[in-house]
């Protein structure tokens, strides 16, 4: 049975009074990869950030409507945002490791969540690095600075860092846009593996990437959700002309 992990109802978002998301209602299934596509500025990142309340950090943001994760409205007053972000992790476009060791980058999250047992931390770090498909490349140099890793390795390290706090949902904003084809392929393969245990939402400008790795695809345009369907349908026979024009490169 398909469980809707996340759903939004009539969601609007304004930056200082200017509408950026216009009436978004969407159901995102559990343990699937859902891709957000659309031209620059259409609100993909804004919508992604609103799924773990990252927009709260921006001045002048106003949100209306409901964002429901596991049947709880995450914008309720009594929601613990730190816990929410633990459950809903995020990976950004530009990998942003700390200027610390590889080990420390991954152990950081579990540590601030109160885990101090060395053995336990080591185990968490190893598992996270393995799940992020980078363990073999770094296991002999965990004490080295993360800054010495390649771009593709840094990105997988950031994924490991996100996984280390044991999230249920992983949001990714163009996670492979700065990577070469081989590193991109590794990230894509990783994403497909991760969906066994995690619900993945990914923003991408790479149509082929969305087509390859996602189960469902949502097309956004000017702050609106224009079309949302199985990826196969979107890329073979979309219902809306705007979707068709965008994915075939006729506008955007």
């Amino acid at each position: 049975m398909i469980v809707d992990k996340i759903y939004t109802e009539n969601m609007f978002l304004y930056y200082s009074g200017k509408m950026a998301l216009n009436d978004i209602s969407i159901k995102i299934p559990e343990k699937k990869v859902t891709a957000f596509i659309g031209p620059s500025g259409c609100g993909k990142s804004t919508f992604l950030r609103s799924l773990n309340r990252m927009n709260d950090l921006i001045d002048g943001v106003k949100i209306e409507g409901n964002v429901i994760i596991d049947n709880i409205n995450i914008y309720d007053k009594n929601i613990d945002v730190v816990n929410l972000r633990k459950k809903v992790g995020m990976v950004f476009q530009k990998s942003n490791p700390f200027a610390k060791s590889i080990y420390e980058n991954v152990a950081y999250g579990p540590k601030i969540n109160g885990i101090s047992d060395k053995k336990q931390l080591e185990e968490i770090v190893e598992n996270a690095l393995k799940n992020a498909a980078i363990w073999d490349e770094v296991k002999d140099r965990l004490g080295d600075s993360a800054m010495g890793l390649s771009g593709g390795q840094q990105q997988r390290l950031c994924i490991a860092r996100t996984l280390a706090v044991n999230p249920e949902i992983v949001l990714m904003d163009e996670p492979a846009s700065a990577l070469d084809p081989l590193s991109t392929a590794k990230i894509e393969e990783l994403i497909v593996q991760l969906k066994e245990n995690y619900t993945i939402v990914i923003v991408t400008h790479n149509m082929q990437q969305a087509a390859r790795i996602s189960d469902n695809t949502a097309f956004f345009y000017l702050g609106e959700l224009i079309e949302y369907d199985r990826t196969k349908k979107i890329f073979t026979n979309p219902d809306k002309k705007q979707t068709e024009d965008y994915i075939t490169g006729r506008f955007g």
Partner: protein
Amino acid sequence: MENYRIFDSELEKLSHKVIQMCSQVNQQLIDVIKAIKTSDIALARTVISNDEFINNLDVKIDKLCQKIFALQQPVASDLRYIISALKINNDLERIGDHAVNVAKRIEPLQDYKQLVEEFGIDVIGEKTTILFSDVVELVKTHDLTYAVKIMNKAEAIKEECEDIASRILGEMMHQSEVVVVAANILIINNLFERITSYSTNIAESISFVVNGEIVKHKKHN
């Protein structure tokens, strides 16, 4: 909102070639029917030698499709168009081959014009050719009213072919001296039936391009 895409010039080229292929095949059918009706052996030979041009075009279209797949990674209606172009190209090439197969059997029939007319082979051939002229229009215009027309007409033609076939078989049983000629006519009849089937395939492919639904194997009405 509309952008110019490098892709569009490739698609235009492809579409142009497919239409060209259609027109060539159409001419082959027109000629082969004329050759049957007038027992024009020279024309039948022309049909046979013109096939090479169609075969070359077939290879060109295949290569162009391959190139577009590899370099443009088409999606949505573009994807459907190229998949269909490949299939249509294949169907056209087969129709071309069958026109040649018919042409090759004209010479042995030249002294049996009466039998050809009696079984209505010239008429069924004419109907097949007229059907194909609708295919040409459909491929040019993507106007699905032609597709519906083709599918309906094709059903009727195929039924007629079956009737003709059983009449020929009857004749073969009763008049053993015409067996060889009748077998030849039977084969031609069968070839027209095949050409009709390929025409239906093309109608289905264009329907797929236009609305993305696979109509193959569905009953038409």
